C-alpha cells in the first residue's frame, strides 16, 4: 500500500493527466448534449497538454533564458542544461493549443449548424429526427 502510494505521489503528474483524460473521455462518450461532449473533448486535449508541460519541468531549475550580461558576456558563462527546464515540450504545446482551439472552433460552428437545422443539441432527439425522415 505504501509503495503504491509513493508511486502515485512520485509520479503524480501522470496520474493527474490520466484522471483528467478519463473525465474528458467519459463526457465524450456518455453525455447526451453535444456541447457537453465538446467540453469533454476539450478536457481530453487539455490533459495531454498538461502532460507535455509537466514533462519539461525539472526540480530546482529555472526558465530557459540564459542569464548574464547581454552581448559578449553570455558566451563565456558555463551553461548547465540541468539548471534550466526543457522548453521544447512547452513550445510544442503552443502548436497543440492552436490545433485544439481550431478544432474547438470548428466543432462549435457545427453545433450552431446542427441547432439551426434541428432546434436541438440533444443526441437522442437528433437521432429521432433523423430516423423520422
Amino acid at each position: 500500500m505504501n509503495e503504491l502510494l509513493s508511486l502515485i505521489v512520485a509520479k503524480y503528474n501522470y496520474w493527474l493527466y490520466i484522471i483528467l483524460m478519463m473525465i474528458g473521455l467519459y463526457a465524450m462518450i456518455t453525455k447526451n448534449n453535444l456541447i457537453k461532449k465538446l467540453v469533454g473533448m476539450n478536457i481530453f486535449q487539455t490533459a495531454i497538454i498538461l502532460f507535455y508541460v509537466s514533462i519539461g519541468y525539472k526540480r530546482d531549475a529555472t526558465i530557459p533564458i540564459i542569464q548574464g550580461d547581454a552581448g559578449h558576456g553570455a558566451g563565456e558563462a558555463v551553461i548547465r542544461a540541468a539548471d534550466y527546464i526543457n522548453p521544447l515540450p512547452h513550445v510544442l504545446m503552443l502548436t497543440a493549443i492552436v490545433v485544439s482551439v481550431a478544432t474547438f472552433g470548428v466543432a462549435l460552428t457545427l453545433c450552431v449548424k446542427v441547432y439551426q437545422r434541428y432546434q436541438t443539441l440533444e443526441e437522442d432527439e437528433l437521432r429521432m429526427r433523423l430516423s423520422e425522415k
Partner: protein
Amino acid sequence: MNNYPALVVVAPLLGALFAGITAWVEDRFTFPIVLTSLGIGVAAAISNMALVLTSGTIQYKMAGWMPPMGIEYRIDTLNAMVMLLVSVIAFLNLAASYWNVRQETPDRAGSFYVMYLLFVVGLLGVVATGDLFNLYVMIEITSLSSYTMVALGDKNRAPLAALNYIFIGVIGASLYLLGVGYIYIKTGSLNMADVATMVPHMKESSSLLVAFILCIIGVWIKMALFPLHVWLPNAYAYAPVGFARIVAPLMTKVMVYAMVRLMISVFGMDYVFNTLDLAEGVVWMGTIAILAGGFMALSQKNLKKMLTYIIVCEIGYMVGGAWLGNELGMTGAILHILNDALMTFALFLAVGNMVYKLDRVDIADLQGLFGKMPWTMAGFVLAAFSIVGVPPTCGFFSKWYLILGAFEAGAYHFAAALLISSLICAVLFFKVFEVCFFEPMSDGHGDGHHGHDNAVAMAEAPASSLVVLAIVSVSLIAAGVYSGTIVDTVILPFLR
C-alpha cells in the same frame, strides 16, 4: 540543396493563401490559381521522384536547422511515390470537380478551394515529414480541413456527420500525440531517424511499448480500421462530391503510409515483430476488418455508402498485409496504398459524375445507366474489376503479393479473407451492374430497327470529368502491368 521536397508542400500552401484573397476580391481567378498551384506541386513531385530514383534519399532541412533540432523532410522512394500520388490525384480531382463544385456549393466555391488546398498541404506534409511532432501537426491540418469540408456537404446530414468525425478524430490525434510524448520522454528526440537509432537500445522499456501502442492506435482511428471505422461511412457519404472524391482515396491511404512509416522508419521491423508479440493479433484484426467491411457493404442501398464500406474493407487488406511480418506482405500493403488510391479515386470519380446527373445515387436509381452514361460506367466497371481483383487491373497484383505474403506467414485466414472479399466485391458490383444493365426491363427485341438501343438518351457528365476518369482508368491498367517495375524500383529499395 534543391528545394523540390519543400516546393511540393509549399506550392499548394501559397496557393491557398492567394486563393483566399482572390475568393474575396474576384472569384473568377480562384480556380485557375488553385489549379496552377497544384500543377506546380505535381511538377515538383515528379522532379522529386526522379531525383530520389537517381540519387537516393533526400534530406531536406527546413529553414536550414540541423536535425535532430530542426524539422527534417526525409524523402525516400516510398514517400516520393506517395507524394506524387497525392499531388497527382489532388490535381486531377480538382480538374474533374469544377462543375460539381459549381453545382453543389455555388456560393462557397472560394472557401471550398482554400480548404481543399489546405487539405492537400496536410496530406503532403504527413507524407514528407521526418519529424514525429510535425507529423501530428500535419495530421491535424488534414483533419481540420476535412472536418470543414465534410460539413459543406448534404445540408441535413453533413454537420452531424462532421461533428461525430471530429469527436473520434480528436481522440485519434490525441492518442498519437500522447504516444509521441512518451517517445520524447524516452529518447529526447522527435526526429524519426534519430529515434530509430535509439530504439534498439531500449527494447525492454515499457514506456516505449506504451508509446508504440498509443501511436499505432491513434493512426488506426484516423485510417478507420474496423472497429474504429464508425465515423467514416457517414462523413464520406454526406461530404460534397468534389471533396469525397479526394478524401476517400487519399486520407485513409496516407494514414496507412503513416503506420508503415512508424513501423519501419521509427520503431523498426525488428522491434515491431521480434520484440512485440502483436503481429498475429493485428493480422486477425485485418481479417475481421476485411470481412466486416465486405458484409456491411452488402447491406447498403446507397452506392456512396456501399463504397465507403469497401474502403473499410480495403483498410483491412493493408493493415493485415503490413503486419504479416514478411517482405511480400509489406510489399503488397505498400503497393496497395498506390493501387487502392487509384481505384477508389476512379470509383468516386464515376460516382461524382452520377451524382452530377442524377442527384441521388441509391442503387435503385441507377436504372439504364449504361445507356445514359456509357463512358462513366466504363470507368466505373474497370475500377470495380480492379477492386474485385481481375487482372490486368492493379487491384489483382497487390492482392497477389498480399496473398503470397499470407501464405509465407502461414496466415491462411488472411488469404481466405482476401479471396472472400474478392467474391463479396464481385457480388456487390454486379448487383449494381445488373440494375444499370437490365432495368428498366425490356422484352429483348424492342426497337431494334437501327440495330442499337436508344431507349435512354445519353446524358454524360462534363468532358473534364470524363477525361480525368479516362486517365485514371488507363492508369489502373498501367499500374497493374507495371507493378513489377514499381516493386523493383520503389518498394524494394525502401524495404531493403
